[in-house]
Structures are given as structure tokens and as C-alpha cells.
């Protein structure tokens, strides 16, 4: 009997990874954002010598610590899930993908783990400047960590710097710099890390506003808001810029993702950018995607049917044509291995030529039917709008907060204080929406055009993955509730506690 992959195994494996990633990403942005704000506050303490800043930074450190532990815990699971649930992926691209993860461990995690201990327990044991350096190095370690994991993620979106080796049946790295500094990785790093600063800044402003509402800790709250709003405004403006560049890169490298983000089924020139419903900005999508108001943007059906002119002048293949060439590549791999076993050099050479001619479409060999190539359009369309909408909102929000801080009127408007508190979940929502756009938009690919998720999984029983999914769900949910409970109690007690 022929063995086949149970489709629900793929879905449950994806669900488990998505669950872990979603939980992990609840904690990471706050770690990255708070680290910068804490670093600035402690720098002010060292520069001015005022104990006020020490007290302030220690309060934010307390919240940082509560958040950090659970972020570390969920991160551990993510790394190992590449092996446990995506074992075929781990072999097929481990030669490239494993390196950033190992470097992350050696360079970033140890820096973070070492200096966080000094940051928490070293106030009375090391000098002021050593302690300040430790606080910054904790944040820098976390940011280095983000760099390498985003290099790995970017490579999944835009695989470069590798060659397929039929002898070992995997892709192998041939250009480390192309992998580590691909333009997609650079932009993704800036976009993701700076957007995390927005979460950190919103959190600090929201919590501080609660003190203003309760007429408590006024100096502490206003000073914290000033630092956070500066960080927030800077981060929002950079995030906007890098977001535009990222979208342009998506248009060039993942046109199906862009078409799904816009729910664009039939493409064309002078394509408008849909805001919501019938509201659209004429020619804007063409401009954003091609930097030309008259540029052609392919829709979902165009991509499936092919036939349109690509920027390099060649004609786009249809999904059927790509699948056919993918099957030729997979067949050639099989023929190559059989020829090798038979020690038939001529047959090996012929198979190798067929493989090389079709290797760009290798992943399409596992695509059963063209509809598999369309990601979830509804989810992408709305996730993209949530992300961009809140991005615009946060520019106005931080600018207003800074303006009122400059006018010394932060205390005056209770509605603004409420708005600041409500903005905390909005920042998380925007951050998660961004990841949904990036990851759901990549489907059905684990690695764009190279390996679909159905060829990337581990051979497990569905029930096994279902069981661990629910264990994770219960465990992470309980820990999240506990974390929120502890946070709220700590905030209620305030910096005096």
C-alpha cells in the first residue's frame, strides 16, 4: 500500500507552530522595546546621578523580568519544533537554516543570559557603569538574537546563497554573506525590531497613563512617557519606511503574497490600492509595487494562469507549467540517485542536466493542484489593513503625546490617558497582524518555491501532534494568565513597592 501524508497532520503541525509563534511573539516585542527604554533611563541615571531615574528604571526592569522568562520558555519550543515537527525541512535546508540558529545561540543568547543576571542582581555588586553596560548588552543580545532568527525567516521568504546537491538530497549554502545580509533580511530586521519598540513604547505610555489617571506617581509617569514617546515616534517613522521597502520586496519576490494582501484577483497596470470596501487610492498599488504609476501588478488569477511579462522581459509561467517542471525536477532527482546506485555516469549526467534545468521549480513538484498556491486571502487582506491602519494611528498618537508633553499638559486630558491604555492591545494586534501577513502570505511554502509545507513535515501520527498541540495550548494559556496577573499586581503596587 502506498503511504501518503495525512492532510490533517500538515494542518495540525502548522497549527502547533503557529500557536507557539503567536505566544512567543506576545513577549518578544515587549522585551526588545522595553530594553531600549530601560537603557535610555539608566543612561540618564548614570549621567545625572539622580536616584529618581534608578527607581524608575528598576520598576520597568521588574516588568521586563516577568515578561522575559516566559518569552525565553516559548522561544525554546520554537527552535526545537523545527526538528520535532518539521524534520524533513530540517534536513532539506538545515545546511543553510541551522547556521543562523547556531550563531544566535553562540553570539546572542549567551550575551543576553550573562548580562541579564548582572542587570537584575548586580546593583549592589558591580559599579554603575558596568551595570549600565550590562543593561544595554542585555538589550543588544536580544536584538542580535532577533537579527539571526530574522535572517533565518527571511531566507524562507527569499532563499538565496544556496545550491541543490542531488548527492545529499538537500540545499547547501554557497554564499554566507548572501544569506546573512540579504536585502530582505536587512529590511525585515529593521521593520520587526523597530515595530517592537512601538510595542514597548506604547506599553510604557499606557501603564504610566494609568498612574496619571489614578493621580499617582506623577513625576515618574510623565518622565517615563517622555522617554517612551520619543522612542515610539522614531520607531513608528522608521517602521513606516521599512514597511514600504518590505512591501516592494514582496512584490518582486512573492507576488502571490502581495496579490492576496490586496485581494487582487485580476491584476493590471495603474492598479489602485484598496483601503477598505470600495475606497481605493488610484494607481497607488502600481506605484508601491513597481515604483511606476503605470506598472503592471499581477493578480491571483494572472499568477495561476501566467502569460504576462515579467520585469526581466520573460513570460511568466502558469501554475500548471511550473508544476510540470517541478515534477521533472523531482523525477530527475530520483533518476540521478538510481543512476548513482547503478554507477551509470552517463545517466547521472543526463539526470543532473534535467534537474539543473528545472531546479527553480523543484517545490512545485509537490503541489497537487494550482489552488494550493493561494494563501488565505481574507485573513491576509484584513491582517495587512490592521497592521497598516494601526501604524498610521501610532504616528499620530506618539506625535500628540510628545506635543502635550512638551506643552506640559499630559495631565490635562483624561481621554488621552484612556486612549493610551487602550493603545496597548492595539500595538500587540498590529504586531501580530504583521506576522500573519509575513507567514500566512508565504503559504503553501515552507521555503518560497522550494519546499511546500506538505513536503517539510515530520512523519508522525495526527493524534500525537494533536496531543502536544493541546498540551501547549493549556500550558501557554495558563502561563499567560499568570503573567498578566503578576504584571497587573506589580503595576498596581507601583514603583514604590
Amino acid at each position: 500500500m502506498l503511504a501518503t501524508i495525512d492532510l490533517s497532520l500538515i494542518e495540525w503541525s502548522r497549527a502547533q507552530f503557529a500557536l507557539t509563534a503567536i505566544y512567543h511573539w506576545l513577549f518578544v516585542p515587549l522585551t526588545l522595546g522595553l530594553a531600549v527604554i530601560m537603557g535610555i533611563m539608566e543612561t540618564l541615571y548614570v549621567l545625572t546621578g539622580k536616584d529618581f531615574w534608578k527607581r524608575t528604571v528598576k520598576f520597568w526592569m521588574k516588568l521586563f523580568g516577568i515578561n522575559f522568562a516566559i518569552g525565553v520558555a516559548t522561544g525554546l519550543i520554537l527552535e526545537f519544533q523545527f526538528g520535532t515537527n518539521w524534520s524533513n525541512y530540517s534536513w532539506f535546508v538545515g545546511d543553510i537554516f541551522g547556521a543562523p540558529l547556531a550563531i544566535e545561540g553562540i553570539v546572542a543568547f549567551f550575551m543576553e543570559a550573562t548580562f541579564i543576571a548582572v542587570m537584575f542582581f548586580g546593583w549592589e555588586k558591580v559599579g554603575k557603569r558596568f551595570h549600565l553596560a550590562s543593561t544595554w548588552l542585555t538589550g543588544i543580545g536580544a536584538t542580535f538574537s532577533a537579527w539571526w532568527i530574522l535572517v533565518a525567516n527571511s531566507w524562507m521568504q527569499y532563499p538565496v546563497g544556496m545550491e541543490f546537491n542531488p548527492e545529499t538530497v538537500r540545499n547547501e549554502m554557497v554564499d554566507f554573506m548572501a544569506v546573512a545580509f540579504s536585502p530582505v533580511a536587512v529590511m525585515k530586521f529593521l521593520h520587526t525590531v523597530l515595530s517592537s519598540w512601538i510595542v514597548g513604547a506604547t506599553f510604557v505610555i499606557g501603564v504610566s497613563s494609568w498612574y496619571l489617571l489614578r493621580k499617582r506617581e506623577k513625576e515618574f509617569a510623565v518622565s517615563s512617557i517622555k522617554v517612551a514617546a520619543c522612542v515610539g515616534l522614531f520607531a513608528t517613522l522608521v517602521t513606516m519606511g521599512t514597511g514600504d521597502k518590505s512591501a516592494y520586496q514582496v512584490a518582486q519576490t512573492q507576488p502571490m503574497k502581495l496579490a492576496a494582501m490586496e485581494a487582487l484577483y485580476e491584476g493590471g497596470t495603474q492598479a489602485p490600492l484598496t483601503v477598505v470596501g470600495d475606497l481605493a487610492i488610484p494607481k497607488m498599488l502600481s506605484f508601491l509595487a513597481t515604483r511606476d504609476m503605470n506598472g503592471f501588478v499581477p493578480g491571483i488569477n494572472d499568477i495561476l494562469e501566467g502569460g504576462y511579462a515579467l520585469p526581466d522581459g520573460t513570460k511568466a509561467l502558469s501554475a500548471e507549467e511550473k508544476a510540470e517542471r517541478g515534477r521533472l525536477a523531482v523525477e530527475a532527482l530520483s533518476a540521478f540517485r538510481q543512476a548513482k546506485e547503478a554507477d551509470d555516469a552517463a545517466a547521472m549526467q543526463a539526470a543532473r542536466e534535467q534537474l539543473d534545468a528545472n531546479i527553480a521549480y523543484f517545490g512545485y513538484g509537490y503541489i497537487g493542484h494550482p489552488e494550493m498556491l493561494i494563501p488565505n486571502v481574507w485573513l491576509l487582506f484584513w491582517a495587512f489593513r490592521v497592521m497598516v491602519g494601526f501604524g498610521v494611528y501610532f504616528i499620530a498618537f506618539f506625535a500628540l503625546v510628545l506635543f502635550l508633553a512638551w506643552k506640559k499638559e499630559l495631565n490635562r486630558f483624561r481621554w488621552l490617558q484612556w486612549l493610551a491604555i487602550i493603545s496597548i492591545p492595539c500595538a500587540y494586534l498590529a504586531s501580530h497582524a504583521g506576522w500573519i501577513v509575513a507567514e500566512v502570505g508565504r503559504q503553501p511554502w515552507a521555503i518560497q518555491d522550494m519546499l511546500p509545507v506538505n513536503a517539510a513535515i515530520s512523519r508522525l501520527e495526527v493524534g500525537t501532534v494533536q496531543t502536544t498541540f493541546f498540551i501547549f495550548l493549556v500550558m501557554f494559556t495558563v502561563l499567560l494568565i499568570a503573567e498578566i496577573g503578576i504584571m497587573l499586581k506589580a503595576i498596581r503596587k507601583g514603583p514604590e513597592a
Partner: protein
Amino acid sequence: MTYTFLQHYWWFVVSLLGALLVFLLFVQGGNSLLFRLGRTEEERVMLVNSTGRKWEFTFTTLVTFGGAFFASFPLFYSTSFGGAYWLWMIILFSFVLQAVSYEFQSKLGNLLGKRTYRFFLVLNGIIGPVLLGAAVATFFNGANFVVDKANMADEWMPVISSWANGWHGLDAFADVWNIILGFAVFFLARLLGNLYFINNIRSEELIGRCRRQLITDAVPFLLFFLAFVIRTLLKEGFAVIPETQEIVMQPFKYAQNFAAMPVLIVLFLVGVAGVLYGVVKSIVNPVYTRGIWFTGTGVVLTVLALLLCVGYNDTAYYPSATDLQSSLTLANSCSSQFTLKTMTYVSILVPFVLAYIVYAWRAIDKKPITPEEMGKDGHHY
């Protein structure tokens, strides 16, 4: 740098990380003793704060060990993690619970209460070492998997590695020798935990208990460890024929490996002597506090020697008990020469990393833990 050299270099790096991880399991071993050693709340707080300042190192070493294995021997990563699913998942669950338990246990609003989080610490302190030990024992005794790279050309089931039964790693416990190494690692971790407390805490009564507990843990450790080592040296091992890369069973393979690499014998014997010296002196000398460094160094050397023995000298380091020819060797499971070479340049950073860890560790441990010391930083568990 030849391809063979790079494979051996990276097996050394992975083995060293594994050896450091076993040493750092003093955190787990110490936690497993939380309720046995800590009679009063103050004593338990001191114990938790003592390991709580180091748990990140253990955690980070575990993650880096995984990352380095992934980067250098990806076929092991995909075969073992994807196959021995339950074994690794249970280890990971216990580490997740441990990670939050320090920070959450004494905080208001923590939902589950202090005792539950401490129970999680004890649970991880038992499960972590036992299962990690059992997982490593499969390097010597084999695991039930099949690898077939030709599967990649199968459109419907393109999965290369698969487990041969539905137990997904729990079958490791069907072999008593895996359990024996699991218990050896468990008692070793407790032994290290005791020595760490002796070095790190100043409380006469508590430390007196730690010294007595040392004897309780050292005896079973020695019994389990010696049984495993003697049996390993006497049993047949999984050898690779260099010319054909065929895997065959060879009598006394691991004993022969030691004989072929005398430096490993030296490492092993110096390591064992270090372990014994640190333990014995800490038991007989009631004011001696540096045993952790002798025993810790000894543990690193001993584990390093064992892991090098199982990977070097044409040995299959992750043998398949189901299909001998599926067994993983340094050559058939490693990354490409380019990747290993690139990673080798990165590994030059390791001494710098170790240097700042030592520097920061010394800065934090300058003052031993006492009830008064814990309150001073404003951050304690």
C-alpha cells in the same frame, strides 16, 4: 581545513556543549533537592535564589547545543527530534515550566501559587536529567529509526527520516541501559547541585545538610555510572568501515576507541579523578567550598571523553537498532564543507563568550547568598 577535519571539529564543539550542559544541570539537580534540603521557608528561598541566578546559563547552553547540532549535523536534528518526538517533547515541557517558575513563584497574582511553581522546579529537576541521560544513552545503544534519502523523490510521502514504532522515543526506556545512564546523570546533577550550594550559600545548618546529602547522591551515582561505563566498554559497538561507509557491529568497539585515542583515556581518568576529589574533599572537610570547580571540571572532561569516543574513530554516533545502515555517522549526517567552514570561523568567538561569562559570573558570586544579601538588589525570587 579538510572536510573530515571539519566534521571532527564540529563533533568536538557539539560534545563540548553537551559536556558543559551536563555540568550546568547542577541547576536541575539542586532544584530536585529543594524540599529535601530546605526545611524552612528562608532556606528554600536561598536555594531557589542560588540556582535562580544561573538557570539562564543551563537554558542557553541547551538551546545552543540544539542550534549547533542543527547547523553541523542536521540529519541528527531531523531524525532524532522528529522521530523521538515524545522523549524530546517531555524534556522541553519540563524546561518551559522551569523557565517561568523562578520569576513567577513569589509574585502576587501568579495564579497557581508558590508551591506549584516550586513543584515545577522539582519536576524539571528530576525529569530533565533522567530523560537527557536516557537520550544520550541511545548514542551508545541505538534507537529505532530508518533514514532513506530516496524518499525525497516520492511525491506523496517525501519524508526522509521515520521512526520505526509508535512510541516515538519512549521506547528508549525499553532498554535498561538507557535508564541506567538516565539515573547516573540524575544523581550526578544532584551531586553537582549540592556542591554548588556549598560554594554559593552561607548558612551553616543548610550547608551541613548539603554535605550529608552528597554521600546519599554520590553512592548511587557511582554505581549507575560505573555499571554503564563498564558495560559500554565490554559491549559490541557500531563501527563504520571507512572504505565502504558500511555499518557493522564490532566487539569491544568503545574500548578499542579509547585504546586508539589515548588522549581520551587521559581526559576520562583526569575527569573521574576531578569528580571524586571534589566530592570526597567536600565530604571530609567541613569548611571546604570549592568542590564544585573540581567536580564540575571533571564532569566536563569525562562527558567530553565519552561523547568523543562515541563519534570518533569510525563510529556511528547515532546507531539505528532497526536498520543498521540507517545509522548516523559524522560523514553521512553533517552539513556541507562550506557551512562547517563558515561556522568554524564563527566558533572563534566562543573563547570571548566564555571569558565574559566567567567575568560576569565572578562579579555576581562575589558575595555569597545569605538572607541579608538577597534583599539588597531589590530583585529576588
